[in-house]
């Protein structure tokens, strides 16, 4: 049976701005299905983004939405969550928005373990501004600002999140469309700061420069270069060479920030 996306979309906003074959649309559909699974109500749910192609996502969704400044989704979202801890707060954005200009906000949101879900669409490039390299661009790859190959090593965004203190970290891909909603739903249900990195495709500014002949080749590349974390347990280091793990990579229960902050308020009031 066809899934009814329409009831979660703002009327008359489609077609969206994303290029033909851009994976951001696949991620948005996964997010909608996850919201449906979790039964989140529109009036109780805020979707917050920074700037970039990926960050255009909240504009299409019929929820409380905030489209903020480049890299600042985590800061604005933290404000929403502190003021209204009962709200479900979901952040969305790209690898550039989240790990370059917004890298500092990102690591500190992870460290605080504030109960929000952050979906990072990692297409390894700044799509919106014409394909400049990002902190997630692999070494050697071409961008408009690394025409002779990128000399920098890339961030492993999921590992960065775990290192910084996020208590739920998962990774999926735009190829594995039917898993995106399941990972996001689990992230939403986790109490604490949850990060879901979706390996994504930007055919327009990354694919062409890096010798992908089509969107389909990019999709198949996502399939061929990833391994589910459970399957990886049974594989040898040679078999895992060059592969990226997908699935739930990390999960831990830890004190949550808004609850801890409520205790601070109580202590302060008792001290009067």
């Amino acid at each position: 049976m066809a899934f009814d996306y329409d009831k979660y979309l703002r009327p008359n906003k489609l077609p969206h701005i994303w290029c033909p074959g851009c994976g951001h649309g696949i991620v948005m559909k996964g997010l909608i299905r996850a919201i449906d699974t979790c039964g989140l109500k529109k009036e109780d749910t805020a979707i917050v983004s920074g700037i970039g192609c990926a960050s255009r996502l909240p504009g299409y969704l019929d929820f409380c939405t905030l489209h903020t400044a480049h890299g600042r989704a985590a800061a604005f979202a933290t404000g929403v969550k502190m003021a209204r801890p009962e709200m479900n707060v979901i952040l969305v954005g790209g690898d550039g928005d989240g790990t370059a200009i917004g890298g500092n906000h990102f690591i500190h949101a992870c460290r605080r373990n504030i109960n929000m879900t952050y979906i990072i669409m990692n297409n390894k490039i700044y799509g919106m501004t014409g394909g400049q390299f990002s902190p997630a661009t692999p070494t050697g790859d071409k961008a408009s600002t690394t025409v002779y190959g990128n000399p920098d090593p890339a961030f492993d965004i999921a590992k960065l999140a775990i290192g910084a203190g996020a208590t739920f970290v998962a990774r999926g891909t735009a190829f594995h469309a039917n898993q995106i909603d399941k990972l996001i739903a689990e992230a939403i249900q986790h109490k604490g700061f949850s990060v879901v990195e979706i390996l994504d495709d930007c055919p327009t500014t990354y694919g062409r420069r890096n010798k992908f002949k089509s969107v389909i080749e990019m999709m198949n590349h996502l399939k061929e270069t990833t391994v589910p974390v459970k399957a990886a347990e049974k594989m040898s280091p040679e078999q895992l060479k060059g592969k990226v793990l997908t699935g739930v990579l990390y999960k831990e229960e830890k004190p949550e920030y808004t609850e801890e902050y409520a205790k601070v308020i109580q202590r302060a009031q008792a001290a009067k």
Partner: protein
Amino acid sequence: MENKLPTIEIIEKYCKGCYICVEFCPKQVLEIKGFVVSVKNLEACIKCMQCELRCPDFAIKVTA
């Protein structure tokens, strides 16, 4: 009832002709005609919903 053909609805004004549904359909039901997708072989459809799931543009709906 078992063999009833599905309905494949294409919203042409949303379709960007990206080929994702065409290439990932296991039964070659779809093709690009001009700039948008169209159904060329409805009889072969096994209602697997891959096209609907993968379309980035909300442009194809399968009703079994």
